[in-house]
């Protein structure tokens, strides 16, 4: 445990991409990023930024990656929302970069269309219209609750399997 307050906890965990990696996570339990309230995610981001700065200075890193693995499909291993701050150096052998994928232009267009429609539905989720946001979120959440519960079950089952 490096730092903690009412909202965020900063800690060093022992299963990491590279030594010096630091994890920022919310004190309250949220399984995935979508559950995290705005204030908390904002705070997490700010703390992650500061952690990144500290990493820059202390480990003389040439760069940092901030990584949120959100959902099982993204390789999330712990059912708790977390941001990883990974110090990077030239030639550290770490491959966090993806291979650009060739995607059909039509597919891209469709995706773009779908996404922009969905985002438009979400409305303007910027600060002045915060009041409306929770309602809109609920709509999205209801649909996702099933998925979340499944996730949780999966996690539980998996964690059970891991226990020897």
């Amino acid at each position, binding site marked *: *445990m*490096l*730092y903690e*307050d009412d909202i965020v906890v*900063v*800690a*060093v965990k*022992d*299963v990491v991409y590279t*030594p010096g*990696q*630091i994890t920022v996570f919310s004190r309250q339990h949220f399984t*995935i*990023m*979508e559950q995290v309230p705005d204030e908390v*995610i*904002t*705070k997490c981001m*700010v*703390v992650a*930024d500061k*952690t990144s*700065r*500290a990493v*820059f*200075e*202390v480990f003389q890193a*040439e*760069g*940092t990656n*901030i*990584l*949120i*693995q959100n*959902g*099982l*499909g*993204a*390789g*999330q*291993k712990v059912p708790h929302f977390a941001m990883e701050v*990974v110090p*990077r150096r*030239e030639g550290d052998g770490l*491959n*966090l970069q*993806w291979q*650009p*994928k060739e*995607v059909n232009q039509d597919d891209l*267009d469709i*995706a773009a269309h*779908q*996404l*922009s429609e969905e*985002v438009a539905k*979400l409305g303007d989720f*910027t*600060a002045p219209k915060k009041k409306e946001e929770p309602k809109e979120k609920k709509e999205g959440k209801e649909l996702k609750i099933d*998925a979340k519960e499944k996730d949780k079950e999966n996690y539980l089952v998996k964690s059970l399997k891991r226990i020897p």
Partner: protein
Amino acid sequence: MPEPTEEQRKQWEEKIKNMSPEELQELQRQQCIFCQIISSKIPSKKIYEDSTCLAVLDINPAAKGHLLLLPKEHYAIMPQVPEKVLGHLSVVAKNLSQAILKMLRAEGTTVFIANGAAAGQRAQHFMIHLIPRKTGDGVVQAEERLVGVEMTMKVKAAIEKKLLTLLGGKKEVQKRVETELSRAEPAKEETKMPVPEQEAEIFVTSAAAKRYHKEKCAFAQNIPAENKVILSREEAEKSARKPCTCVSGKKIPLVKPAATKSKTESKPKGEPKKSKESTTEPAKKALGSKPSTIMKTRGEEASLDDIAKFFKR
């Protein structure tokens, strides 16, 4: 773009040397592809736009629906970005991620920020990648591995100080509270005792009386103003007078209240009580409330331990 000749290059270098920081920034902005995307000089597929940020589809996507979330201002790396903007970006990122999960049936999203070329940043414009994920798509190929406890301790020791200064040293406050708590029990009596003593600094007696009282004692209240004598603790102890029970603190003085003085007397009656109980009550309160916070934090730590266990696996 045609290759610049050496002369042109030199000219450029000189120009850049002579430029003010503002001009340099302006130049960076002109050169930045993403700034041109933001100002619509380069066409792009915009997904979301507001006054501070813009989300577009990546041209070299890791997966279908790979989004880039850009602040409209030009910042090269994350430390340059103001907190307000960062906070806004994270909220937008969350909502976009939600949209990705819902519309593209992704099994998850990866939010990725690269600071510096060593971290794989290609353009000099801060951005957040939002990548829709499916199991086994190999987007993040790096394997996590177990690092020894020594290493984690080293990391911890190295970064703790810097991090705390950056974060405003809130942990120190917490630590202090914790140490206070750990000290609270042995220090209980030490901190309590001076309180009644300080209150009892002044004693009141009557010129003819054989006892001295605390100022708030009911007996003291009964002393007529013209006979009142005020003593310090030393004086009171030196004088032949004996301490009232209010001073020794054994009993509460019982006084038959005069009907007219009932109000003023009932109060002083209560107050010596309080002064007596004050030794225990606030301490109890202090001890009562603080352990509960301990319990809370402990409970949370317990849950965090669980998380740590998860991490270990």
